[in-house]
């Protein structure tokens, strides 16, 4: 596939006195499925609209296949958009909606018929060509919107929360279809969503945006396993963020002091000293009998056990007062620890990641949104050492 390379250089856009996009740089190679995720108002949709040409940047450049798009109006850009609310023309039937763009290019009647027929087959809407949009289901409308853009064979397809209006089951199905379709047609997809799971499922690479800035650009695996910042860790997936006192590197790992307990963390920034935040994913937390001993273990009490079907979500409170979420796979055995049981929470060294010094991570604490929002506040018994008074910072990223 030729073309479809997008270069964004220090792009900036303000509305009145609000900076929506604050000098971002992105490089999207040809044929990539690139997602931009972030909470509402992080600037992801504004970025997409600037690529499409609906908003004019205040500063910075958008270069499409080597051509600066600054003076190119939307109708002359080789870029097409699938809109959030589809925006299928209600006065035209499915066929005419899909043929709209081709007819603007003065494509011959026979060619329009051939191309529309082919794309209708591709999105499995062959028998609905004569229908009006109001006679289509949400999923079918979504396919029409996709077909209408794809039939023009753009260099880049921009998708603005295309699955946002659909129910959860259909979303899952269309995520897989969309990814397969993208691989089939080989067009560069720039996909904007606030749903971190959607981005992780489909993307080749993900840009995580917050407050108009790009926090991290990496593969789904890397943004999940190796988040660059506390925001990224918190936004993608459920995170246990633990505040600790870093004691410096030792044997390739970072020594951490959490209350009276010592942990070692093998990932992240290992040579820090002072207050830090470190991350452990719930699926990496192990719960062991209280009697068991060893490195990286902190006694804890089981506060809540939530059965989720495929797994069991357990909220334990560490002896230092910090609640931690653990995900235990449902392997068929009964979950051995009842509420109120004391256990050892094993936070393996290779699952602990030091995200950086707390001074650099200044900002509002992430929203608390877990299965248990009624956790009692941390007992105020450790006010003497505020860095060891961890707040319950467990977010699942969908709290926007």
């Amino acid at each position, binding site marked *: 596939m030729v073309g479809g390379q997008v270069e964004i250089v220090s792009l900036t856009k303000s509305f009145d006195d609000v900076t929506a996009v604050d000098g971002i740089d992105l490089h999207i190679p040809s044929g990539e499925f690139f997602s931009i995720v972030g*909470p509402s108002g992080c600037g992801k949709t504004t970025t997409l609209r600037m690529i499409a040409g609906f908003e004019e940047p205040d500063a910075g450049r958008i270069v499409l296949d080597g051509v600066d798009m600054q003076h190119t109006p939307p109708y002359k850009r080789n870029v097409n958009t699938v809109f959030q609310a589809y925006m299928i*023309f209600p006065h035209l039937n499915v066929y005419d909606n899909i043929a709209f763009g081709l007819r603007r290019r003065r494509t011959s009647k026979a060619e329009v018929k051939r191309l529309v027929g082919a794309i209708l087959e591709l999105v499995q809407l062959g028998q609905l060509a004569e229908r009006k949009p109001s006679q289509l289901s949400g999923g079918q409308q979504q396919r029409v919107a996709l077909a209408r853009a794809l039939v023009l064979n753009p260099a880049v397809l921009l998708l603005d929360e295309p699955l946002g209006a659909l129910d959860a089951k259909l979303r899952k199905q269309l995520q897989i279809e969309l990814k397969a379709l993208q691989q089939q047609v080989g067009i560069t997809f720039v996909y904007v969503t606030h749903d971190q799971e959607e981005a992780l499922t489909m993307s080749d690479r993900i840009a995580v945006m917050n407050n108009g800035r790009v926090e991290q650009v990496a593969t789904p695996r890397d943004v999940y396993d190796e988040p660059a910042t506390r925001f990224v860790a918190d936004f993608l997936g459920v995170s246990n963020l633990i505040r600790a006192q870093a004691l410096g590197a030792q044997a390739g790992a970072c020594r951490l002091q959490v209350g009276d307990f010592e942990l070692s963390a093998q990932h992240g920034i290992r040579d820090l000293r002072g207050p830090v935040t470190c991350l452990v994913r719930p699926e990496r937390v192990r719960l062991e009998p209280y009697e068991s001993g060893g490195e990286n273990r902190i006694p804890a009490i089981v506060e809540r056990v939530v059965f989720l079907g495929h797994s069991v979500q357990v909220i334990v409170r560490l002896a230092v007062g910090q609640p931690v979420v653990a995900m235990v796979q449902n392997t068929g055995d009964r979950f051995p620890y009842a509420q109120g049981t004391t256990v050892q929470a094993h936070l393996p060294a290779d699952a602990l990641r030091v995200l950086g010094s707390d001074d650099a991570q200044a900002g509002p604490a992430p*929203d608390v949104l877990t299965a248990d929002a009624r956790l009692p506040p941390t007992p105020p018994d450790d006010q003497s050492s505020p860095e060891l008074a961890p707040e319950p910072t467990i977010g699942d990223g969908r709290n*926007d």
Partner: protein
Amino acid sequence: MTDLVQALPPRLLGSEPPPAPWTARLRARPWGGWALGTFVVAYLIWSLAPVLIAFLFSFNAGHSRSVWQGFSTEWWTGPGSVFNNPLYFDAILHSFLLAGIAVVVSVPLGVSLAVFLGRWRGVATRPASLLATLPLVVPELVLALALFFLVTKLLHFVSVGTPGQVVGQVTYILPLVIVVTRGRLASIPSGFEEAALDLGASPVGAFRLVLVPLLAPAILASAIVAFAVSIDDFVITQYMSSSSSTQSVPMVIYNSTRGSASPALNASAMVMAVTTIVICGLGYLVYRAVNRRESIVFPQASIEPAPIGPALREGMV
């Protein structure tokens, strides 16, 4: 046991309760009953009876428009009838000519202005919108005076007579077209125009291929309104007229009621009334057909969930 049966709702016992007497129904909905009905009938008689009587007198056998002298069709077909008296017939033709031009000029102009005012985002958007609709509240007589001054003293290329009447009526009708069109425009998300641009249509193409079809009901409605207002207009049309050749039907009726007009005047008024009702009725039928054919369900602008984090936090404190 009896208590239990009585306590159960009648549906469960398999028997419907007896129908309530009409007095009970009336007490339940006093305004839905005779009071409102009587009021409506009284109003219809009050407003329509004079029109029917005027209609009836166009069939009077004599020359009077107030004393019944027997039935005749001479004022509809005879030598002095509405269609043979040039005064009346020319006025009818002139009224329809003015209405036709007013529709053809004011609807495209008004729709374009409405789209411009509705979609343009600039500092002057709000003041411009206000000014554009100001003629709605300016008394027609004041507008007519001002326009007469403008046409006779300043704009010499517009002469009084038909051109002046058209300019005046269009000025008067434009705000109505703008208001009707903007109402519909506000319900059409700008995303449709963006989608058209995205698919390669020029701004003019997006207007013509997407916005105009979506505005079709409003365009039809404003055409009906423009036609009806123009046919009905007296003040501006009177001020801008030049001679008897530019008299419209309302002017002829006004000028001749005080004199000794024949029942042909009633007939000419009826011709206008019936034609206007037929044309507006046809317009309405087309409007309904267009509306039903589309049954547009516009998408919601935003489907991103509202932030619930802060609310939850507040709930916790």
